[in-house]
């Protein structure tokens, strides 16, 4: 059992994660929250329909308020993305973009939803023939080849670094990176070739991907392109733990009314569990998940 074991680890600091943190820490659980405030889909919103706030609130104000509340109850915030999750006997382990490992008796997934598709010409056509959405799944198929990764956040950068172990040449296409300083240094000291202030305009090939045309006019000759927008989401962080998704869309995590997934000790709340995508639903589910996780962790600690 790791020395500094948390009771409740929460991936995501949007309304679902913050409310979960408030309720779990309120029950005296040792709580850690991962993620970035500015990456919540609420951050840029103006909110008029959230009960009890009569005046229009900005998402930023709400999130900052929620963070202060959770901190006052004792929750700890780590402003980093999670890039890996593992389940071990009686605890979960998560790895941050800086490579730090944290362990917790329970885990609450509140990563929200994010765009996965690039929506450019050639993308759909070449899926499985050079276009990939999962470095962890497909890196092995690109041994000795040239590849590109597109994205601005931790998934793209850690993905590009991972690909160095397989591919001959790795290009990273990004507009502006939003990652931790440590990861940034790691990237700059690596052999990844970076195309900055650039984005993918078109993916070109005959039967397979052969070239990627950038908005800067540059063309990359590559055998594959990995589309890794944003931070790792449900499919990357939950599916490997054996979490069941809704069979109809394969986009959302299935939970019961206590926000439990099919894995004991693992909960999900907010946009990640499906529609409606609203703060009220996110905080409602976050509240339940936080309380349930705290109780479950207590039981594990006492047994």
């Amino acid at each position: 059992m790791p020395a500094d074991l948390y009771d409740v680890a929460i991936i995501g600091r949007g309304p679902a994660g913050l409310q979960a943190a408030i309720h779990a820490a309120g029950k005296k659980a040792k709580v850690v929250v991962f993620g970035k405030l500015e990456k919540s889909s609420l951050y840029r919103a103006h909110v008029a329909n959230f009960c009890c706030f009569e005046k229009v609130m900005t998402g930023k104000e709400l999130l900052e308020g929620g963070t202060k509340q959770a901190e006052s109850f004792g929750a700890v915030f780590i402003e980093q993305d999670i890039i890996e999750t593992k389940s071990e006997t009686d605890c979960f382990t998560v790895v941050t973009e800086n490579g730090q490992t944290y362990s917790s008796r329970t885990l609450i997934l509140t990563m929200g939803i994010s765009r996965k598709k690039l929506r450019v010409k050639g993308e759909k056509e070449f899926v499985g023939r050079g276009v990939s959405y999962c470095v962890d799944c497909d890196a092995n198929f690109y041994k000795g080849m040239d590849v590109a990764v597109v994205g601005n956040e931790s998934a793209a950068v850690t993905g590009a670094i991972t690909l160095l172990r397989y591919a001959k040449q790795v290009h990273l296409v990004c507009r502006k990176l939003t990652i931790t300083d440590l990861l940034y240094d790691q990237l700059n000291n690596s052999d990844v070739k970076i195309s900055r202030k650039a984005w993918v305009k078109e993916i070109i090939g005959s039967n397979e991907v052969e070239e990627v045309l950038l908005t800067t006019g540059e063309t990359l000759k590559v055998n594959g392109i990995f589309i890794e927008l944003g931070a790792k989401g449900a499919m990357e962080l939950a599916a490997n733990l054996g979490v069941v998704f809704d069979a109809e869309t394969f986009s959302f995590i299935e939970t019961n009314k206590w926000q439990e997934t099919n894995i004991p000790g693992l909960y999900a709340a907010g946009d990640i569990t499906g529609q409606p995508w609203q703060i009220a639903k996110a905080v409602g589910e976050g509240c339940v998940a936080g309380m349930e996780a705290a109780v479950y962790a207590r039981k594990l600690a006492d047994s």
Partner: protein
Amino acid sequence: MAEQGVLDVTDSNFESDIIKADKPALVDFWAPWCGPCKAIAPVIKELEETYGDSIIFARFNVDTGPNTPAQYGIRAIPTVILFQNGTVVDQLVGAVPKSHLEEFVKKVL
């Protein structure tokens, strides 16, 4: 009568169990480290329970042998390929919804 569940195939029995099979076959190319592969596995199993009488449901762990995946140009997993009389009818890449997979399976019914 679906007696055998989802069959594990490898480079060595791919020819006999899939290519030369007397029934159409659906092969799920997967790997243990792949999250999306884990996500679709229960759906493939469900489809096997429904359609297992008329179609062979198999899975190929790409970790066990590179030849077959390379032969079919597999560069992303999960990839699900539908075979009939030894040739590829169609293929799907990624964790696609159950309804898509079911439509896909019906192509050989």
